[in-house]
């Protein structure tokens, strides 16, 4: 049992290291705060860009999603609009 748990943990660590997570957010957006807490709770490392200040990043986000609501999470090749816990958990393999 312990070996399986250990292997699962190693596999998860590798998955996290291989998958880049980028969060487009603003400091005032309440769901961004909630999402960051969720990432922290699940030990997800992520890069955060503040689209309220970084105009280039805002442009990039608008082009990728066709909309301007935050949070937007980029997980590898996938892009998730909003605090869609189900979808984000699935993409990050969080149970």
């Amino acid at each position, binding site marked *: 049992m312990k070996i399986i748990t250990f292997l699962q943990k190693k596999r998860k660590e590798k998955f996290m290291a291989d998958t880049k997570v980028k969060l487009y957010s603003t400091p*005032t957006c309440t769901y961004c*705060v909630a999402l960051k807490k969720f990432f922290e709770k699940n030990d997800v490392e992520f890069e955060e860009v503040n689209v309220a200040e970084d105009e280039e990043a805002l442009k990039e986000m608008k082009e990728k999603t066709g909309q*301007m609501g935050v949070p937007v999470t980029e997980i590898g090749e996938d892009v998730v609009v909003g605090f869609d816990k189900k979808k984000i958990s699935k993409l990050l393999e969080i149970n």
Partner: protein
Amino acid sequence: MNMKELIIIGGGPAGITAGIYAARKKLDGLLLTKDFIGQLGNAGVMENWPGEKNIQGPELLESFKSHLENYEFPIKQEEVEGLEKSEDGFRVITEGKSFESEAVIITTGRRPRPLNVPGEEEFVGKGVSYCVTCDGALFQDKNVAIVGGGNAGLEGALELSDYGKKVFILEIGDRLQGDEYLIDKVKDRKNIELLTKVKTEKIMGDDFVTGLEYENLSDGKSSKLEVEGVFIEIGSIPNSNFLNGLVELNDVSEIKIDPETCRTATEGLFAAGDVTDVRDKQVVVAAGEGCKALLSAYSYIKN
């Protein structure tokens, strides 16, 4: 079909509180909700929930939700599309499914009132927003418009004026409706322009919003504003339209309840929180009302 004792519709402060009490009373129940967002999920900082000096709306809601989940009370995230009477109680209809119960508590809350003009729906999330706290910061150095000159509109305009180049307030009446001290603050800001007696008619854009058109009610002439954001702050409406005449509503579509018991005019049907005609639309009130509704429903079910 599996007949339950109780179904709670809605996942805000009222519904979750009812759920917690139902779980503790060991009722055979189910909570159905479209999502756990609603008004509280979109609220900024809350400073009037006892025990929390300063907490974000979604964070408080998340803590309510995890409290309920602690009890293993069944929850299904499905939007309720209809409610009707069945032989022994009620039938709650969601997309492609239906559930039956002896009693129902409705706690579906409210949503922002739409303006109902062309372009509004099309550009939601593309420049049209109902939440300055959520989306305001995306409009740094941009021209934006805020529709509605009540307190929410004025507070929104003040927040937006910190980011935006220029903020237009469009008010349909001949003067602003908000509190005097907010009006004074707004008038002091150099980048806020007030437009009164104007009716917003259309929101324009291509991929994103580029402007809006309004009619000046004094002379009937139409004008355009070049704005990249349009914030709509014209109040909220109760989420009661799925009820189809099953329950008595007041003239602003709120469910009429007995203030002591949260009973509606329909036997076995209870309601609590902002969807009802309760006077104070507050999180702490909604939670209390959820408790009252559950205790009344409990005695209805057990007697």
